């Protein structure tokens, strides 16, 4: 399942005084099975960009292909595309509506016209993916759950469509550290074991550094940087200009280097940093 954008331009409120270009000539290709991180300052066009991936927004000009199908054509069956490209919006718990968790999570599969047994099977499986138990939750109202559980139920609602691409817009915003860790681990597992292509929009440099294979940085509606986390985080100055940063541990390595310690600065995690410092200092474990 690959996604390809060619020279996409998009503006909100076209021909009004409030016209603002949100995407200026974006071209990019996301390959099957990639885990892509998308970062950028607020208002850089991240959310606008991902809504092009399943045809919720259509470009003012340019082309969008999902699996070779052109989404900008009038007769494209967007419903089929949306089953394959699952999208989890910011604060997804704000769109819960079902009387029961079963009804809410089963909304997507029922819309694709699946029979009841299949819907139940999908719901069971989707809830398991986000670490929730079907039997205890299925008859509860989603509105009675805790914040973290609501978020998971909402994410399960998208997973129940069995998408081959999963797009998440800041899935951990407003959660406590443990909730963040768990949700990110579940997403990672979906990618590693389920073979799903994942696009993760986030503000956390630590998260992307740990998780993704490829990092795309947006600035003012264009792609500013695109590469592996190590490549992107090597551009410290550029990132700081944009109001972004690098993971704190990477920052630490740069500090050490500027104080005369000859360390490798291509470090993204605490574990890597530990090894590197031990190596440079010549300590034995």
């Amino acid at each position, binding site marked *: 399942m690959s996604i390809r954008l060619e020279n996409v331009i998009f503006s*909100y*409120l076209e*021909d*009004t*005084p*409030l016209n603002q270009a949100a995407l200026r000539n974006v071209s990019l290709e996301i390959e099957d099975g990639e885990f892509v991180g998308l970062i950028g300052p607020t208002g850089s066009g991240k959310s606008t960009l991902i*809504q092009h991936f*399943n045809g*919720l*927004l259509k470009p003012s000009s340019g082309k969008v292909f999902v699996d070779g199908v052109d989404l900008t054509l009038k007769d494209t069956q967007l*419903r089929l595309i*949306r*089953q394959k490209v*699952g*999208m989890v*919006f910011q604060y*997804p718990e*704000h*769109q*819960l*509506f079902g009387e029961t968790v079963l009804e809410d999570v089963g*909304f*997507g599969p029922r*819309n*694709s016209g699946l029979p009841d047994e299949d819907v139940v099977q999908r719901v069971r499986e989707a809830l398991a993916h986000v670490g929730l138990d079907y039997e205890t939750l299925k008859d509860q109202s989603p*509105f009675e759950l805790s914040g973290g559980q609501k978020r998971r139920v909402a994410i399960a*609602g*998208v997973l129940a*469509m069995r998408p081959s691409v999963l797009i998440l817009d800041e899935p951990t915003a407003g959660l406590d550290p443990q909730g963040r860790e768990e949700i990110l681990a579940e997403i990672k597992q979906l990618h590693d074991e389920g073979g799903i292509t994942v696009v993760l929009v986030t503000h956390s440099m630590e998260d992307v550094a740990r998780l993704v294979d490829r990092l795309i940085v947006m600035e003012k509606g264009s792609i500013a940087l695109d590469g592996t986390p190590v490549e992107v985080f090597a551009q410290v100055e550029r990132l700081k200009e944009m109001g972004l940063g690098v993971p704190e541990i990477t920052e630490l390595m740069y500090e050490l280097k500027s104080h005369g310690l000859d360390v490798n600065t291509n470090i993204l995690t605490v574990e890597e940093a530990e090894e590197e410092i031990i190596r440079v200092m010549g300590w034995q474990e």
Partner: protein
Amino acid sequence: MRMFRSVTIGQHIPGDSVIHRLDPRTKILSAMFLIVLLFVVKGFVGYGLVALGLALVIRASRIPWKFVIRGLRPLMVILVLTLTLHLFMTEGRVIFQVWFLKVTWEGLIRGLMMGTRLVLLILGTSMLTLTTSPMQLTDGIETLLKPGKKIGIPAHELAMMMTIALRFIPTLLEETEKIMKAQMARGADFQSGGIMQRARSLIPLLVPLFVNAFRRADDLAIAMEARGYRGGEGRTKLKELKFQRLDAVALGLVITFSVLVGAFF
């Protein structure tokens, strides 16, 4: 999915034109004169004059025509309905007849008059909201209603309710769009099917919308109290309204125009 972007009522466009600088009370009173005038005027010459006057105001406000006209789009359904109803339902000289449906001269004239009236009404009132910030608007309404306090009109509370309502129209529309998108991403379909099916398909949209609106209302109430809001009693203003010479001239013009057009056309 940009269906809601055409709503201009309640959307303020900042600017520095003569119209923008007028005291909100002047603009509110002028809008009221316009409304009364539109119901007094009986002929097309009068409507023509009102349209001309309105055109001058729009011009002076330096808000692009395209944007002002766009505000009429949501009105199209009502306009067409008004015109058709009048066209077929008025007794009079028959122009032509299809089966039992008669199209009459009187119907045509009345339909067109009603349509023009509605268009001018919306254009005039959206000029008020386009050039006046919600803050100014409430301030204006509040001061205008103050004399009514003696007979128990809660001027401040009404004004506050109006601002909050106006302020949240765009927010609610945005929210609607967001939820629609989220449900569409899960295969929801809001466009096809019969009337019952369409009504059912709105549940996934309306339930979250209401839940979020109540949550937001709660948050807002708490935020207001946290900043010491206790109603209008003894509340001072950062920017006092000032009625200037420009306002006197403008209001004088509007009144003279309304009386003349209302009396003769």
